[in-house]
C-alpha cells in the first residue's frame, strides 16, 4: 500500500545515467549470445520471504550449475510490489529494451496473469513458480507460459481432501476477499462436497488490511463446523492461525485446514503455535539427499536465515530446465521465439534435485508429485528448519487437475 518502490527506485537511479549517456546495451555480438533471465517478484511485501533473497540465490544456483555451454546467462531482478501495473511495466521494459528472454517467479496471481499475457504478445517466456491461481493453466493458459510448483487445485485436493478423509466433514471458510481466495475456497468446497462433506458457511475478509481475525473465528465457532478452512495466504494465514490458537478453538476439537501454508509461514509462527497443521507441498528440503543439497546450496548463496520453500525450489528447477532447452535448440532460435522454447521445454522430460523427474503438460502445467505434510511438535524437531513430517505422497496425476477439466483453449479435446 504505502510501500516505496525501493528496488525499482534503486534500479532507476542506477539505470538512468546508463540508459541516457552511456551505451547500456552490450555489444551486439555479445547480446546475441546472452540469455537474460528476469526475476520478477515481491521483494518488499508480504510474499518477500517465500520469494525475495532465496529466489535470487536459487536462480543463481541454477545458472551456476548449468555452467557455460557456449552462451552467457545473465540475471536481472525487480520488485513488482504485488501490483499488476508495476509488474507489467517492468516486464515490458525488460522485453522491449533490455533483451530479457524469460521472466521468472511472478508470485501474486494478479501479476502472473497480466505478465503471462504480455509474454504471449511479445513472444517471450513466462514461468510462474510462486503463483497460486489454477487459471494460469486453465482459461488463461497460453503457449508462452509454464506454471511450476503448485496451484489452487492441487492445494484444495491434497490438503482439503485429506482433511475430509480424516473426519472433518463440515467446513467453515475464512477467505481472503480477492481472486486467489475465492478460487481456493471454490476448489476446496468442491472437493469437500464430492467427498460427502458439507460447507456450513464462509466469511470473506478484506485483503489487504485485515489484522484481526477474532471476529471471523468466533463466527466460525458459532457455525459449529468441524473444520475451519483458511483460504488466505502469508501474513493473513499467520494472523489467523495465531488467533485461532489464542481462542483455544483447536483444544475444543475443531480442525484447522491451512490450505496454503509455506514453510516460511511455519517459521514465522513457530512450532509451538503451528504444530499439527497439515499442508500440501511439492518440495520439502528434507525429503532426500538431493533436496537437502539444493536447500544447502541456496542458503549458502543467499546467506538468509529463512528456510528454502517450494517456491524457491521452483525458481531453481525452472531456470535449469529452461537453460537446458535453450542449449538444446540453440541461442539464436531461443531468442527468436519464446513459444518455441516453451514447446521444446514441454517435449523434454524435467530432471533436477529439487523435484526429481517430471514433465510439462500441454497446458503449461509442470507435473511432479505432491506431499501432504504435518507440522512437527517442538520436541520432534531435531534441528534448524526441521518442521515437517511427510504423511503421504500423492502422484502428479492425482494431485493436479486433469488436462480435460482445465478449459485451456490450447488443449484439443
Amino acid at each position, binding site marked *: 500500500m504505502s510501500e516505496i518502490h525501493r528496488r525499482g527506485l534503486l534500479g532507476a537511479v542506477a539505470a538512468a545515467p546508463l540508459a541516457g549517456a552511456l551505451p547500456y546495451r552490450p555489444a551486439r555480438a555479445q547480446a546475441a549470445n546472452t540469455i537474460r533471465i528476469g526475476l520478477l517478484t515481491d521483494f*518488499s511485501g508480504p510474499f518477500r520471504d517465500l520469494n525475495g533473497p532465496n529466489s535470487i540465490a536459487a536462480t543463481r544456483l541454477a545458472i551456476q550449475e548449468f555452467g557455460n555451454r557456449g552462451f552467457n546467462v545473465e540475471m536481472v531482478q525487480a520488485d513488482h510490489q504485488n501490483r499488476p501495473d508495476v509488474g507489467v511495466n517492468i516486464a515490458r521494459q525488460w522485453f522491449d529494451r533490455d533483451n530479457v528472454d524469460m521472466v521468472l517467479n511472478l508470485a501474486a496471481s494478479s501479476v502472473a496473469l497480466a505478465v503471462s499475457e504480455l509474454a504471449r504478445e511479445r513472444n517471450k517466456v513466462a514461468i510462474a513458480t510462486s503463483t497460486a491461481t489454477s487459471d494460469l493453466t486453465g482459461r488463461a493458459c497460453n503457449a508462452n507460459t509454464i506454471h511450476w510448483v503448485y496451484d489452487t487445485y492441487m492445494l484444495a485436493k491434497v490438503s482439503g481432501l485429506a482433511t475430509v478423509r480424516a473426519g472433518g466433514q463440515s467446513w467453515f471458510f475464512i477467505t481472503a476477499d480477492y481472486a486467489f481466495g475465492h478460487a481456493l475456497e471454490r476448489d476446496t468446497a468442491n472437493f469437500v462436497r464430492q467427498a460427502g462433506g458439507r460447507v456450513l458457511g464462509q*466469511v470473506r475478509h478484506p485483503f489487504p488490511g485485515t*489484522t484481526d481475525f477474532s471476529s471471523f473465528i*468466533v*463466527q466460525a465457532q*458459532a457455525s459449529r463446523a468441524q473444520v475451519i478452512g483458511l483460504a488466505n495466504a*502469508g501474513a493473513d494465514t499467520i494472523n489467523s492461525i495465531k488467533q485461532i490458537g489464542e*481462542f483455544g478453538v483447536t483444544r475444543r476439537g475443531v480442525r484447522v485446514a491451512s490450505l496454503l501454508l509455506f514453510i516460511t509461514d511455519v517459521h*514465522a509462527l513457530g512450532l509451538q503455535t503451528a504444530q499439527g497443521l497439515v499442508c500440501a507441498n511439492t518440495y520439502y528440503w528434507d525429503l532426500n539427499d538431493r533436496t537437502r543439497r539444493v536447500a544447502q546450496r541456496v542458503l549458502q548463496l543467499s546467506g*538468509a536465515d529463512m528456510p528454502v520453500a517450494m517456491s524457491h525450489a521452483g525458481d531453481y528447477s525452472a531456470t535449469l530446465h529452461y537453460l537446458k532447452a535453450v542449449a538444446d535448440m540453440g541461442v539464436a532460435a531461443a531468442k527468436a521465439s519464446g513459444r518455441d522454447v516453451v514447446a521444446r521445454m514441454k517435449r523434454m522430460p524435467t530432471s533436477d534435485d529439487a523435484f526429481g523427474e517430471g514433465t510439462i503438460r500441454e497446458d503449461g502445467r509442470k507435473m511432479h508429485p505432491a506431499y501432504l505434510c504435518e507440522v512437527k511438535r517442538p520436541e520432534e524437531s531435531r534441528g534448524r528448519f526441521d518442521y515437517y513430517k511427510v504423511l503421504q505422497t500423492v502422484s502428479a496425476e492425482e494431485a493436479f487437475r486433469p488436462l480435460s477439466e482445465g478449459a485451456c483453449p490450447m488443449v484439443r479435446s
Partner: protein
Amino acid sequence: MDEIFGIPAPLLFGQLLLGLINGAFYALLSLGLAVIFGMLNVINFTHGAQFMMGAFVAWMLLNWAGLGYWWALLVAPLVVGLTGVIIEKTMISRLYKLDHLYGLLLTFGVGLVIEGVFRNEFGSSGMPYRIPAELQGSWDLGFMFMPIYRGWVVIVAIVACLATWLVIEKTKIGSYLRAATENPALVQAFGINVPRMMTLTYGAGVALAAFAGVLAAPIYSVNPQMGANLIIIVFAVVVIGGMGSILGSVVTGFTLGVIEGLTKVFWPEASSTVIFVVMAIVLLTRPAGLFGRA
C-alpha cells in the same frame, strides 16, 4: 432475545466485546498521535513503524536477552521512546517553523526507512511471540470463549488512556504542556524549557505506540508491516475524534472498534472500509472532528 437482526444474540455480544478489544488498540495508538499533534503540531506518520518497533523490541528482549513479556512492557517503550527522542532532536525539531506538510513527509519517510531496515533484517513473514504463561487460556462467558489475554489488553489500555489523560489534565507538567500548546513563546518567557518539553512529549507519544506494540506482539504477527496496516485506520480515528483531542481519540478509538466489529458480522467485506465511511460523514458534517475545536 435469541436473535437480533437475524444474528444470534450470543454471537452479537461476542462481536461487541471483540470490537471493544480492537478499539483498545486504536485508542492507545491514536492517543499517542493526538498527544504529539496537540503539542508539536506534527502529524507523526512514523507511528506505525514505532508500534512495530515496540513488538520487535519485545521479541529481541526475549530471544537475545532472555527477558520475557513483563519486562518488555516496561523496557520496550523506554527503548523505542529514546529513539523517538533522537529523531525529534535531530530531525523533527528543525521543521517546527515550517508547514505541517514537511513534518508529515519527514515522518512518513523515516517510517518507511525503519520498516525497510527491519524487513531487510528479519524478512516479511514475521517472528513468533507467545502469550505469557500467566495470561494463557480463556474464560467461558456463556456466549463466547474470551481469551484471558484479550481481557488484559482492554484493561491495560483503559488504564494507560486514563493515566495519560490524568497527567495532561491534572498535573503541573500537564498544565505547562497545555499552556505551551496555546502559546509557546509566553510559556518560554516564564522560564520553562519548551523545546525540551516538546522532545519529551514526542518521546512519550512514541513510547505509547511501542507499548501498544508489545501488547499486540502475542496476538498479531510480529512483522515489519504490522504497523502500516493499522496506522491508516488509526489516522482515521484521530481525524474523526478531532486532531489533537485526547478525549476524542480515546472515545473514538473504542467506538470505531465496536462499529468495525459489528460490520464484520453484517457485512464482513466492508469491514475495512466502514471506518473511512464514518470519517467522510464526520468530515462533511463536523470538519473539526467530533471532539475537535474548529
